[in-house]
């Protein structure tokens, strides 16, 4: 690690984080420890009730500032302990997008929705105007600027929510099942946007998602959670190599990866396991060409 990187520290550092909701002895999060470096694209998956959403709420400071409960351990965002940093200060570092696009849109017009956070942080009006244009452009929804938020489709609403989070220029973007109400095309579109933000703008992306096949395709690192613990922390290809990791927590391995894994066990698939249909096609073509098919 270089001296500079050492000084900057990890984007997110979680140490022995334990959290219980009030009135419950069950640990929603159980001694979690992990670090995320700046610029990573991390996918978090796991069965319902594994603690994925609670973990995100710890990363944006809602826990412990807004949600009561027993909180142990430490969460550091960009070197700041969330316990000592207010949600509003964290809002400058961490953008959050939630599951229900309907409930997170507060303004009647798209433009005002994007402006909401900026106005709260007392950004000068001229800069707000500029940032609205930038973030809408970035998400590819400039045409929606003056539309009424109630008339948007689910996918459009979700992208407006992402634009509203991006407008605050955070270093880290947290998304809690951002595609739960979207069709497959809408899901892809949202993930394409996330990939572009991650690659071109060096944004650290943490996304909770049940759809493992899409996470495998886009994330550079997968965290699999169960009962408030991380049971696996590995790049997607390694996860595909051990499908029992997914099945043991009740998730289905992505069909493409699973097929290639089974073929590979019989020596019928060469090289690394494919993450997309395109990868698989290429791998199989090579293999069959070798065999003269």
């Amino acid at each position, binding site marked *: 690690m270089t001296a500079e990187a050492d000084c900057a520290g990890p984007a997110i550092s979680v140490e022995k984080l334990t959290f219980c909701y009030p009135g419950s002895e069950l640990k929603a999060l159980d001694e979690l420890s992990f670090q995320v470096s700046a610029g990573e694209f991390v996918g978090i998956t796991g069965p319902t009730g594994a603690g994925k959403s609670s973990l995100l709420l710890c990363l944006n400071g809602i826990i412990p500032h807004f949600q009561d409960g027993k909180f142990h351990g430490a969460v550091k965002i960009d070197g700041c302990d969330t316990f000592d940093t207010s949600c*509003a200060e964290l809002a400058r570092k961490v953008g959050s997008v939630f599951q229900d696009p309907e409930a997170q849109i507060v*303004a009647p017009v798209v433009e005002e929705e994007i402006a909401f956070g900026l106005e709260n942080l007392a950004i000068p009006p001229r800069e707000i105007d500029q940032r609205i244009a930038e973030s809408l452009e970035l998400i590819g929804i400039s045409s929606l600027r003056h539309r009424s938020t109630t008339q948007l489709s689910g996918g459009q609403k979700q992208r407006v929510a992402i634009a509203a989070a991006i407008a605050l220029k955070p270093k880290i973007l947290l998304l809690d099942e951002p595609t739960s109400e979207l069709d497959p095309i809408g899901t892809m579109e949202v993930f394409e946007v996330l990939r572009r933000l991650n690659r071109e703008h060096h944004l650290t992306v943490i996304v909770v998602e049940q759809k493992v096949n899409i996470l495998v395709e886009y994330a550079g690192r997968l965290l699999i959670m169960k009962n408030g613990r991380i049971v696996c922390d590995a790049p997607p290809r390694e996860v595909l190599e051990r499908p029992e990791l997914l099945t043991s927590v009740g998730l289905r391995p992505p069909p493409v990866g699973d097929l290639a894994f089974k073929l590979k066990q019989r020596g019928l698939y060469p090289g690394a396991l494919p993450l997309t249909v395109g990868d698989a096609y290429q791998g199989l073509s090579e293999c069959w060409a070798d065999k003269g098919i």
Partner: protein
Amino acid sequence: MSVVANYIPRDSAVHRLSPLTKLGWSFLLMTLSCFFRDPLVLAGLFASIVLVALAAGILKEMYPVFKGLLFIAGLFILFQIFFISEGKTLFTLIPGTGIGRVTDLGLLGCLAMGARMIVIAASFPVLMGTTQIKDLVVVLVEKLKIPYPYAFMFVTSLRFVPTFMQEMDQIIQAQSSRAHRLDNKNFIKKFLSICPLAIPLMVTSVKKAERMAISMETRGFGVGKRTNLHVKQFRAVDAAVCSGMAAIGIAMVVLHFRGILL
């Protein structure tokens, strides 16, 4: 609700005025309508509202609102008029019996009451039709010093009306698909049949509110001083219109106390 409080986009001089000027106009009309009891003067005030709507180019949209107000005022007069017995009898509904007696004072009084009600109620939809809510909120917060959370609450409640309507539709569908009957003849049973709709709606609303609060929190709501993207300037035109309105208002009140306008 949607008709009364909807913004109607037009490019008119009235739309371009500062929300403060329009609020002042609305307030002036309310004040004046309390001074006068001559139905003709009140009708004149109402005519001025119609003229403003015409100038703003929203008369067509306002027409059903005004019609509704006239209807309600008519009902109001009808309910009141037979109960005022002072004054000279003009006519009775059933001649020779004294049932449904209408007196001159009663007629004038009721007409004044109805007209006053219309004047007070009619300026509001014109104000909302020509002013964007965000501009109104900025004025309420910046100029009239209403705390931002309250103004915010007002805007957001309007934003959530369609959401809750949708929610309600879903609940009705869900409950009627499980043989819940809504079309009960018995009034008490009908009232009770609302509970299985109201309770889920309340639960989802509270959940939505909590999620919204979390989303607001992550975007720095209530940190302290905030800025506004759009601020409608109070221009020279506004100053002119305001002083004009003040002059007319004062003149009318003076004439009233001199006994010329009643």
